């Protein structure tokens, strides 16, 4: 029963995140929405695992959380530098990272 309720809550959460993803309006809304959607997927897999009495799904869910984290970092890093292999561009002040402006 508890897992059923959790499942309904997750469905609603998915819908809300999707609305944010469709509507935008800014880039960061969508990056954050994708990240949240990954988190909801992690929870979904966990709940499905417990509901079908296979708690070992939780390990898989944890791996999803790792992928989600690395993916979000990759997307954000890409937007900052237009390249994944680089550090800060020449002559750029590391402090400019703080205000989060994007080119």
């Amino acid at each position: 029963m508890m897992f059923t309720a959790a499942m309904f809550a997750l469905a609603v959460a998915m819908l809300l995140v999707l609305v944010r993803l469709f509507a935008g309006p800014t880039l960061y809304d969508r990056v954050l929405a994708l990240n949240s959607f990954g988190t909801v997927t992690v929870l979904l897999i966990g709940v499905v695992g417990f509901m079908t009495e296979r708690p070992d799904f939780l390990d898989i869910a944890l791996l999803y959380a790792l992928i989600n984290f690395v993916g979000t970092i990759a997307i954000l890093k890409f937007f900052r530098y237009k390249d994944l292999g680089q550090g800060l561009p020449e002559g750029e002040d590391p402090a400019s990272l703080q205000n989060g402006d994007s080119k």
Partner: protein
Amino acid sequence: MEAFIDIVLFGFLILTAIAIMRLRNLFAVVMLSGVFSLLSAGLFVVMDAVDVAFTEAAVGAGISTVLMLGTMAMTSREEKPPVHNRLFSFAIAVVVGAALIYGTTDMPPFGAADTPVHQHVGPDYIERTPKEIGVPNIVTAVLASYRGFDTLGEVAVIFTAGIAVIVLLHGRTRPARSADARKKGKDA
């Protein structure tokens, strides 16, 4: 309850697909295709194919999102309005979809144990793995022992592809940054 999860996931999948079609902002489309992958991965987990689901999440939501962003950085962020006839594309999509759905009517029911694929060599592996290989996971026994040469060949192919990619990318870096790039290539 499983039916409810399936309906919800498929419903969101359709919503996402429609949104991908409607939106002209390519960044949003890339994010939505990541969500599409995560939803498919969820469906695969519900269908007990956790390994497929994991590949889908890693490749679909992880790598290909970054690759598409990389492509977008070189091109435009807005999709141009289509120049060809939309009705024609829609008709092709409907015909292909109908053909695929027609194809599924010939398939055995989901999870059936008496399909030909489970009658051929499967029982043999299940019977012989504990005696011959002695590992608890039969899939591992098949991949690493019964099909060991095949797996070795696959690993060799992936290794060659990796070397080729490193060589190509290294050749493209500018001389001023080549020391940095060499380090990066090794890390990759």
